[in-house]
């Protein structure tokens, strides 16, 4: 009986050593997924996900703390890409796809305070102090930050209008 205890104990020591070595050998630094995920994120640092920016958001996703659907500007496409990367399945029907919008400055209301100009994370607003500001629609991500700060409420978020080049068939109504 005693030999049994010894033998199994020795077995334990042996395996412990093996695992100890293995943990050294296979040590991983950080989570390499993080970087790959950050690549996928919009990168506008808008903070709508509730994280301070895309970097921390990426970390949260990589560690499984945030759902892949966390980024509103990314929409379904991003959720799908993240799900693919993370190897999880998501119910995309839950993801609300906001109609894309861009900021529009009503010129007669703009007093040139430069607040929006300073807040815009993508430099989509042009104009200097006391000048009328305008939004460069191609760079605007519709993050609504300027909308939030404008003291005269001269900014309107407008849906992007389709034209012949951008129109496409809608999904057929579900049967």
């Amino acid at each position, binding site marked *: 009986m005693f*030999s*049994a205890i010894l*033998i*199994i104990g020795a*077995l*334990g020591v042996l*395996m412990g050593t*093996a*695992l100890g070595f*293995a*943990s050294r*050998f*296979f*040590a*991983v630094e950080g*989570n*390499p*997924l993080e970087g790959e995920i950050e690549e996928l994120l919009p990168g506008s640092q808008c903070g709508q996900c509730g994280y301070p920016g895309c970097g921390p958001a990426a970390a949260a996703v990589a560690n499984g703390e945030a759902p892949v659907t966390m980024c509103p500007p990314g929409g379904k496409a991003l959720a799908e890409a993240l799900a693919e*990367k*993370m*190897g*999880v*399945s998501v119910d995309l029907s839950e993801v609300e796809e906001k109609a894309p919008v861009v900021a529009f400055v009503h010129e007669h209301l703009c007093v040139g305070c430069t607040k929006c100009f300073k807040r815009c994370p993508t430099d989509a607003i042009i104009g200097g102090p006391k000048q009328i500001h305008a939004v460069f629609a191609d760079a605007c991500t519709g993050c609504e930050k300027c909308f939030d700060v404008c003291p005269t409420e001269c900014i309107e978020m407008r849906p992007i209008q389709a034209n012949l080049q951008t129109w496409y068939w809608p999904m057929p109504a579900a049967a």
Partner: protein
Amino acid sequence: MEYLLIILSTALVNNVVLVKFLGLCPLMGVSNKLDSALGMGLATTFVLTLAAFASWLLEHFVLGPLNLGFLRILTFILVIAVVVQFTEMAVRKTSPTLYQVLGIFLPLITTNCAVLGVALLNVQQDNGLLESLLYGFGSALGFTLVLVMFAGLRERLALANVPTAFAGAPIAYLVAGLMSLAFMGFAGLTSG
């Protein structure tokens, strides 16, 4: 021929998952996607075969000669746990995505009942080394087969218009049930 029969019978007739009810949690957990299912199947195949081998060694060189039958579960599970942990570390290092996918299920291969179950069954049936290996491999094959078929079915179900009360886990159980129903057709296959 005889060896083929062992593999066939363990993989199909006495399928670990559908007939013996072993390894169900990974079946449910890692079958959302075909790719992850394949990965899990391969990982399990590796662990299962290795565990069958290691447990045979233990049984024949330690437990049997010393008459320590009562330590069987303990030692087997220990060996399995070590093999799995080793695999986990290796996967984590070599393929972060696979690691992410297999997630909590890699450590849980330890308690994938199938692994211990097969090791114990090997002892119960007094299998020789080669038979034990084949038995382990066959079971793992059966596991992988069912896992992959199941994953295929679930991918298809993800596109189907399943009523909300059943969508997700319930319908997966139902499909497992119907697969197990189908596998009953193999009953008696090897007994003649």
